[in-house]
């Protein structure tokens, strides 16, 4: 076994850190936090110039990155909270387009994603369909030359800055659950599409999008009619393998930096038993979170599909982040109440922010309960409830 990365991968990590030092300035970070939108055109285009948006895809003039490179790149970008959500969702959909989409969609969309010029947001969840995606009710009915869409999508994050929404709709009105669904790429400036802001506990802005008699030409259809669920699975597989441990790494890093500095009265928090114990437990779980994540990458590298191991990684990392954000705010004490953005905040309010941010992590990309169901069935071989 070998738990270290090869020198080439470590060199890439170094490059990414240098890139972030140049392009992800403190000013940009603060601006993104204040406006609640984890997207910045200039940053994403700069990523595109390095081919770091979808580095595993073939592209003229660039050598595709292997799994190790992608792992480390994504880890570094996520750890500092760089604005990569829109480019990540775009890549996720790009993979679906690449697998099942038409030549028109491939030629029209994929190059613009890779360059960071266009972004695609996810339109899967609905008011009555969250982790249970198959419960979608948004409808698309055939019309002359295309489809007319009616319905609502929740958590269409970045819809106010993005170009297209990856929309899962029911094309067979009599269908149930996984059947009769189709996926579309709907231009967000289409008539009948309305974006309404939704603000979250973490400070992040997301959206609800409304579709009222919205017409989309058939060439924007991604999957076969009725083949939406299969195409969606391709995207979700990607979402489960997204890295979550870097958020915990971020929390541990800032909490440890806080604890090492004397407080206003000259006491070093790290000398306190409760602080030390909260920190080392977070650092231990971080180690495990990183290993579980590493394992999914390693399994893919040897041709295995981490059907239970992906969910294990997501479950462990996000639950650990939530638990330790809670424990560390308690260890910091009353000062942990000072908000991110407040001039008096400790650790720039990052521990307080981690607490709020962690609440979303155990929900999006499939709640912890859904992950446990998958693990119980696929690993523990327990019968479905």
């Amino acid at each position, binding site marked *: *076994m*070998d*738990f*270290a*990365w*090869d020198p080439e*991968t470590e060199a890439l990590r170094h490059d990414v850190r240098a890139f972030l030092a140049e392009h992800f300035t403190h000013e940009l970070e603060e601006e993104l936090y204040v406006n609640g939108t984890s997207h910045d055109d200039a940053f994403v285009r700069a990523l595109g110039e390095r081919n770091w948006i979808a580095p595993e895809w073939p592209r003229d003039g660039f050598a595709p990155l292997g799994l*190790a490179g992608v792992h480390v790149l994504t880890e570094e970008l996520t750890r500092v909270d760089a604005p990569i959500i829109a480019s990540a969702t775009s890549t996720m959909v790009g993979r679906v387009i690449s697998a099942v989409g038409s030549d028109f969609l491939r030629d029209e969309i994929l190059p613009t994603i890779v360059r960071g010029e266009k972004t695609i947001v996810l339109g899967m969840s609905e008011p009555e369909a969250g982790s249970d995606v198959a419960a979608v009710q948004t409808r698309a009915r055939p019309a002359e030359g295309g489809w007319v869409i009616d319905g609502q999508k929740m958590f269409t994050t970045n819809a106010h800055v993005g170009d297209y929404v990856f929309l899962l709709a029911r094309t067979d009105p009599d269908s149930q659950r996984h059947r009769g669904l189709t996926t579309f790429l709907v231009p967000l400036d289409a008539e009948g599409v309305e974006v309404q802001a939704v603000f979250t506990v973490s400070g992040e802005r997301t959206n609800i999008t409304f579709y009222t008699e919205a017409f989309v030409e058939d060439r924007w259809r991604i999957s076969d009619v009725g083949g939406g669920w299969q195409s969606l699975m391709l995207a979700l597989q990607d979402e489960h393998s997204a890295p979550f441990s870097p958020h915990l790494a971020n929390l541990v890093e800032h909490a440890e930096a806080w604890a*090492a500095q004397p407080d206003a009265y000259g006491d070093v928090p*790290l*000398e306190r*038993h409760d602080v*030390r*114990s909260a*920190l*080392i*437990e977070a*650092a*231990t*779980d971080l*180690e*495990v*979170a990183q*290993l*579980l994540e*590493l*394992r999914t*990458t*390693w399994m893919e590298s*040897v041709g295995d599909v981490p059907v*239970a*191991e992906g969910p*294990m990684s997501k*479950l*462990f990392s996000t639950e650990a982040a939530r638990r330790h954000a809670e424990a560390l705010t308690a260890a910091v004490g009353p000062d942990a109440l000072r908000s991110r953005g407040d001039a008096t905040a400790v650790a720039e309010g990052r521990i307080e922010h981690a607490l709020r941010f962690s609440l979303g992590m155990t929900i999006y990309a499939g709640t912890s*309960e859904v*992950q*446990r*169901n998958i*693990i*119980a069935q696929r*690993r*523990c*071989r*327990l*019968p*479905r*409830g």
Partner: protein
Amino acid sequence: MNLGLSAEQQELVGSFTNLFAKSASSERVRAVEPSGFDPALWQTLVDTGAVQMAVPEAAGGWGASLEDLALVAERFGRVAAPAPLVDAQVAARLVAATESGPAANALARVLDGDEVVTLAVRTLRDREARLAPAGAVCNAMVAFDGENLLLTRVTDVDRTAVANLASAPLADVRVRDDAAVIASGPAAAARFERAIDEWLTLTASAVVGLAQTAHDLACSYAAERIAFGAPIGSFQGVAHPLADDATNLDGARLLAQKAAWALDADDARGRELAAMAFAFAVRAGEVATYNALHFHGGYGFMLEYDVQLFYRRVRGWSRVWGSAADASARAADARYGARVR
């Protein structure tokens, strides 16, 4: 980065799995309770070279890495084997690392398979090793008194065997007046602490093995046992804790393997990772074995069902050194520097 086992490691795992399946069935484990020592199993292990493999080649052993020993320790834990393999391996490595006449003699007897040498995992107090692992069956013991590393003969007059939760061969052992000093000063402390790093790592692996078997028993039981008209494993109140346990045990195994890899490489984080691995494995193992026993319902409370064997040993095999919190404190000292007291 490679998390796969080499062909040789797969072979090693396979051969120890077979050895334990033949020589450490649950009937055998039960038959030697409460002493917790099966002389026939021990002889088989010694004949196979299970202790000798842990000693470096330069000292006459087979030079197995800790990574390999961790794989063996997990198989050992899977069957709750009634033999002090980890204690003997770590003690033999420690003895081999010192350069003194008595140590060389003791090592020769270990390599010949004539004697059991163990390690007092906690620093002596008043020349007594309380609850020394394998203290009830060893012929010699290495112990650290805070200054010197001592090698002492152990016979029945030197020990008081202790009936205990884990049915492990524990004893309160007195270090003899004629014990040999095999290292002293900073070197003694460094060697003892390194031995503890190794013991924590291998015990973490053994605990993962124990807990994994209990967990597997619980998953099989939950898939079959019908209550309220359905298999209990289909209820989320049962399924979800089992999913968490499966996850935690995978994480514990990976962390123990990483710790072994780091110690093999003399990596600067070796001590920290070893203590983290122990803390995490013990916490995960305690919860997993509790859940496994509990989900068996009343049967889990009966001695006849095997799950209790593993519940008791997860606690007993680890706490002879200390708790998960003690290991976390050791990890914190390694990561942040010792606390100013």
